[in-house]
């Protein structure tokens, strides 16, 4: 099985754009879809991006997902940052032994 590696934390100012990466350690990132989840403090996760780049229902178009086979990574980009975007973000994909694999999570601080 592979791992999904995320930066521990990122920070950016309101109104700016931030990108969170998710690197697959073995096998191609394109082999299995990548999802992104947002978890605000004390709350359950919510789905932000499905299948690499599809925004979940109700998610504003400030959020976008992509994959890059050259770096074997997926990314979540949030533009026009708002303080309400401050949260932990997790990427997730599918494996064979561990069928569902989560990245370690990235804490986004909007300051």
């Amino acid at each position, binding site marked *: 099985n592979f791992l999904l590696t995320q930066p521990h934390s990122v920070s950016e100012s309101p109104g700016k754009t931030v990108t969170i990466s998710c690197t697959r350690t073995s096998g191609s990132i394109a082999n*299995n*879809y990548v*999802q992104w*989840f947002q*978890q605000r403090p004390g709350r*359950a*996760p*919510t*789905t932000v991006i*499905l*299948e690499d780049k599809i925004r*979940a*229902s109700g998610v504003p178009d400030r959020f976008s997902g992509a994959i890059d086979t050259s770096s074997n990574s997926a990314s979540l980009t949030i533009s026009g940052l708002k303080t309400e975007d401050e949260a*932990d973000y*997790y990427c*997730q994909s*599918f494996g064979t*032994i*561990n*069928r*569902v*694999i*989560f*990245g*370690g*999570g990235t804490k986004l601080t909007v300051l």
Partner: protein
Amino acid sequence: EVQLVQSGAEVKKPGESLRISCQGSGYRFSSYWIGWVRQLPGQGLEWMGLIHPEDSDTKVSPSFQGQVTMSVDKSSATAFLQWTSLKASDTAMYYCARPYSTSWNDAFDVWGPGTLVTVSS
């Protein structure tokens, strides 16, 4: 509206048994896998496993194999996660979630609010 409603917080002693629940509504419960996800205090999300309500087919993470039991009751549209002998290390938030389609390997798009399990002597 599709919803997953989880049972309330639990406080247990080591060695005790526990069953927590996740009730689905607003959709055909028997058609969709239900997944379980653990979150240790201050830590990330860990996939525990999936169960299909129609035939109780399960896919369990090797990390949790033999540690927990997943089950369902179709008549009440409820999935369960059960321990026979809790340990302090089982203290965590447990989420149930449903994929957006009837395949197990589709993204979770509905999440329950979580059940906090505290195991302490």
